[in-house]
Every structure is written in structure tokens, then in C-alpha cells.
């Protein structure tokens, strides 16, 4: 697959590494493909919060530049993942993708403990997602 070639390409090692977490495998496939087609990102995808958290723990600080996670997932949802990661590395940049009908105020109201700066509503317009990731990387 093209993605495998690109990951293994040493030139791409300087590229920003993005972790994408979603229980919908079809969605993971599309996000990974579309992000990697820009030749700007390395993408690692995980279909559960547990797998994502394990991978996060097993890598050094700063390995992942941005984490994008779905909210509604079985067993460990996106918020739980967010908390675990923030506990370990508070400065980690995390954005949410969700299919929920929700805006930022409602987000803050429902979960005041989570500082939700960035979230993207499904279905994702890939151009939006790319722009969001770039702006997160810039801060």
C-alpha cells in the first residue's frame, strides 16, 4: 500500500506524526489515506482507546505531534483517552472528531474539566481536518 511505502520512507521521518483513534475502521482507512496523500503527515491509526494509549505509553515524549480521537467509542471513549494522555503529558495536543451534533459551548458545559480547543464534526471535510492539524502544529 502507498501508506506503507511512505511510512518507511526515511525522507518522511521529519513529517508530523499524527495519531488517529476511531472505532470505525472505514473512517480510519479514509483519514489515513487522505492525510498521507498530502505528503505532510505520518499517520498511525488505532481502532480503540486502549490500543492508542498503549502505543502512546510505549513511545518517547513528543513522538506523536497531534492526536485526533473519536469520542464515542466502546470501552474507553475519547474523553477517557484524553484524560489518560493529559495526565502523563499535559502539553500533548489533542483534537476530537465527533459525529455528535455539538458546539464548543455545549462541549464545555458537558465536560468542564476538558479544555476542548479543537474538534471536527463528522463527516469530516478532509481539507478542514488538514487545516486544523496544521494550525495545531503551528501553536
Amino acid at each position: 500500500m502507498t501508506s506503507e511505502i511512505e511510512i518507511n520512507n526515511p525522507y518522511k521521518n521529519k513529517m508530523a506524526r499524527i495519531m488517529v483513534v476511531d472505532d470505525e475502521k472505514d473512517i480510519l482507512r479514509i483519514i489515513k489515506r487522505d492525510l498521507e496523500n498530502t505528503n505532510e503527515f505520518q499517520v498511525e491509526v488505532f481502532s480503540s482507546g486502549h490500543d492508542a494509549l498503549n502505543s502512546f505509553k510505549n513511545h518517547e515524549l513528543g513522538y506523536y505531534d497531534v492526536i485526533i480521537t473519536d469520542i464515542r467509542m466502546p470501552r474507553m471513549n475519547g474523553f477517557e483517552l484524553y484524560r489518560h494522555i493529559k495526565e502523563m503529558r499535559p502539553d500533548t495536543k489533542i483534537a476530537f472528531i465527533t459525529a455528535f451534533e455539538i458546539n464548543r459551548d455545549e462541549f464545555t458545559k458537558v465536560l468542564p474539566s476538558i479544555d476542548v480547543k479543537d474538534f471536527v464534526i463528522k463527516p469530516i471535510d478532509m481539507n478542514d481536518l488538514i487545516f486544523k492539524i496544521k494550525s495545531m502544529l503551528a501553536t
Partner: protein
Amino acid sequence: MLSIVLSRNNIFLLILVIGVGISLSILSYHYSGLTADQIGEIASNDIRSNAIIETDGLSKTLLHIIDPVSTNLEILSKIVNYTNIEGTKIIMDAVQNSTKSLTEGYYWINENGQIVSISNVNSSIINSYSGIDLSNREYFVIPKETLASYYSSAIESIDKIPRLYISFPVLERPNEEVFKGVIVASIKIHELGRFLQSELAPQVAGNVGLMDKNGIIIYGSNPSLIGKYYLGEEFQSLVPEEIRGPYNSLLARSLQGSAGAEDLILFGGNKTTLTYQPVFIGGKYLWTLFVSSPHQLAAEVGVLINNQKNFSTLMILIIGAVALGIAFLILSWNKRLESAVSSRTIELKDANNSLVKYNKLLESANEKLSIHDKMQKEFINIAAHELRTPIMPILGDAIYLEKQFEEGKKEVKVDREQVSSIIRNAKRLRRLASDILDITKIESQSLKLNKEQFNLNDIILSSISDIKAQLLSSNPEQLENLIIVYEPKDVFVFADKNRITQVLFNLLSNSIKFTERGSIEIIVKIENDSAGIKYVVVSIRDTGQGIDGDILPRLFTKFASKSFEGTGLGLFISKSIVHSHGGKIWAVNNLDLGATFYFKIPQQ
């Protein structure tokens, strides 16, 4: 009005005012009483000592007026000359003139008891009296016997006028032992009494009395008692019975020849001081002079002070009553203000309460609204999630392919995964659309059943094969770890075939969703209820994670889902279908592992 004032503080204040008033009254009354008694006592003492002084003075006055008479009589008795009657008479007239304020006249009686001469009376009249024998009169007999002067008691004559007689014997000189007659002076007792009374100081305001040493009343305020013995019936009948004893013993004491002053308490508490003083004439105890001094002044002072006392007490009572009234008014005014304030407070409170109640109503309405809102929101969220999630892979692949055309390609390569993904997600959308449609039908109560006779076995088998096919496409790994146990058996039932298939498929896919490994067992039984109606009971037992305790009570309501794939509508729709068949659906957690779902519907 009373009840208004009777708050705790007000009662205390009232009691305080009443207490102070009563204490002041008692103090004032007591003090005034003491003062009255003391002043009364002082006045009584004053009256008593005054009476003693007066009586003493009066006895001296009595002596002073009696003395000249005695002296005159003594002189006359010595100078009378039977040989010169006319000459003696001139002297007698002169003597009478010197004492005429007291004496009625001087009489010269010879040794036979015949009148020789009378002062101020002409001889012809005297001659007409010459036949009268006075030799049996005391004023003749006693001097004749004793050859000494005689002072009579009160003696009533024929004319009913009580008189006092003093007589001196006429003795023949030189040896003076031969009785030659008597010189007598008659004194009208009224005159004596009037004189004594006039001599009495007016402030004593008492009465004078005179009694001889034998207890015969010589003078008293009551003329009818003159000449009467003090223990006699006439006198005693006039002495009030309650003081008779002490009065009589007082009089008896007074006749022993010594002076004294004693108080008598009369009926009604009036006090009288009776002062007595013996009168000695020529060294002999003859009479006792009495002065009775009623303690009228003291009584008056007492009454005055009593009045004062009553007045001041009354004043205090009035002032107290006025103070009480004012206190009462202030309190009631205060109370009225308070009650006005409290009624206003109550009004405000009521208004506030109704506001609070209204707010509560609003709150509960809001709550209901918000519950409704929340449910609505939940539905929208789930619907949004379920609608958006499948769209993304479909759209994502389609856009990806289209992009390649845009790059100038005539043909693009589509791999198997892309096609499968599109179909899978499109089916998911279709299922959601049908679920939403079912919900709409259920909620608008327009769910129609098309009942027919069919074999339950057929739909169970087809459901199993469908679900296996689905699992093979989405999660082949799970299919390897899971076995579906079912013993095929023909069971005919009269029901809506498609709807019952929907229920069966729903329960089956539900079980598979939560059972990663193990088994799912489907059993069909026939059951009779108490009315003899036959039911078909289908149970689906899994070895999954079981039903969450939070979810169990609302398992068959809308959106009660722990799944992150489903709509949370499946079980609600299943319940509605089973109920519309007149059946029942329920679920239990197994004792060991997983859960079992049951539904039963009438066979016919």
C-alpha cells in the same frame, strides 16, 4: 383586644407595672397606717395628759369655789346670835351676795330644826316657814351628831331640783360643845355643774361629772341621774353593756380616794379617757371629780390620716391604673403595628410562596422540558452519529475516486475494500432509515401487522445465516470464536413474519455485539398460560458481558444503549412489535455469564 396584648413580653411588662403599682399601694398604705396609728397614739397621750391636768385644775377650781362657801358657813356658824336675828340676817344676806353665783341661799336653823332666818328672804316669808321641821334632814342631823361640818350628796327637794347642802353646826360658846343649830348653804347642782363645765378647757371637749365618796352621782351630763347610785338600775341601764364591767370597776377604783386616768374603749373602737380626781374639803375626802375626754381629736386625726391614707392609696391606684391603661394602650398600639407588620409580612410571604411555587412549577416544567429536550437531543445526537458515521467512508471513497478522474484519468482502480465499505455503510444507513421509520410508526401508533401463518424455524435459520454473513464481512475473527447453537424444530405461529424476523434479528445481533467469544443459544418453547392460551417463547442466551445494571431497568426504552454502534432503537422497536402481538419481551443476566433475552407471543 386582650389576646392581642398577651404576648410573652407584654405579659411580663403588664405584670411588672401591676406589681410596682401594688407594692407602692401596700407600702403607702402601710406607712400611712403606721403614721396614723402613731399620730393617733400621740394625740391620745396628749388628750390623756391634758385631761389629767384639766381634772386636777378643775378639782382645785371646785375647791376654790366651795371653800368660800365653807368659810362663810364657818364664820356664820360662829357669829350667829339668837339675840340679834336681824343683825345676823344682814350678814347672811351679805354672805349670800358674795357667793350668789353658786349658792342658792344660806339657812339658819335652830337646835329644834326650825328655820330661824334665810338670806335674802324677808322675815314675813321666813315666818311662814317657821312651822317646818327640818330636824330629820341630814344637813341637820349629821352636824348635830358630829358637831362638825357636813357636805351632802345630791339631794332632791320637793321642787325636784337637786341640791347640794353644806352645813356647819352652831355651837354655844365658850365650851363649844352645846349644839345650838346649823347654818346651811344650798347649792343648786345645775349651777355647780354649769360652772365646772364652763371652767373645763374647750379643747378637752369632755364632760364633767361629780360623785360623792359613796358613789352617789352629784353631777353629770344627764340630769336624771343626779342623786342616783352608780350601781343603781338607772345609771347602769345607760352604760353600754360591752363596757359595763371595766366602767364599773373604774368607778369603784375612783372612789378609793386617789387620782387616776384610764382609757375606756367604747363600742365601735372609740376611745375615751376617764380622769378622776378626789376632792378633799377641810382635809376630808368627800367627792370624786370626773372628766371624760373622748379621743375625738385623736379619732379625727386618725380619720383624717385614714382619709389621707385612703386618698393617697386611691391616688396610687388611679395613677397605677392610668399607667396600666397607658401601658396597655402602648402595647396594643405596638401590637397593632406588629400585627399590621406581621400581616404584611404574611402577605409578602404568601406572595413569595406563590412565587416560589410558581417557580417550582416553572422549574418542573423546565425539567420536563429539559428531559424532553435531553431526549430530543439524545435522539438527535444518536441520529446524527449514526447518520454521519456511515456517510464519511462512502463520501470519502467517492471523493477519492472522483479526484483521480479530475487528475485526467479515464479509468480508476477500485479495490474490494472500497466497494465493501460503501455497501456496508450504505446498508447501515438503510437500517437506520428503517428504524427511524419504525419509531415514527410506533409513536404515531400506526404500526400495522400483516399476520400470516409461518414456520418460526424458517426465520430463525435465515436470521442465523444472515448474521453470520454480516459478521463474516465486518468481523471474521469474532465469527471464529463464536458458535450459534440452535436445534431446528418446526413451530408454526400466526404473526407478522417480517416484524418477528426483525425482532429475532435484532436480539441476535444484539447478543453478538456484546459477545466476543463463546456461544449464543436459541431455544423455542411452547407454553400454556392459566387461561389455556398457547404461547411461543423464544430465548436467546449469550455468554457476553451481560447487561449493565444501569441500563437493565430501561433496557427496552429508546436510546438505552451501551453499544457504540447501534441506534439504541432496536430493543424499543422489538418491544413495540412484541406488544402489538399481545406478547411480552424481557431480559435477565445469567448467573454465570452473559444475558438471556426472551420474547413470547401467542401462537395463534
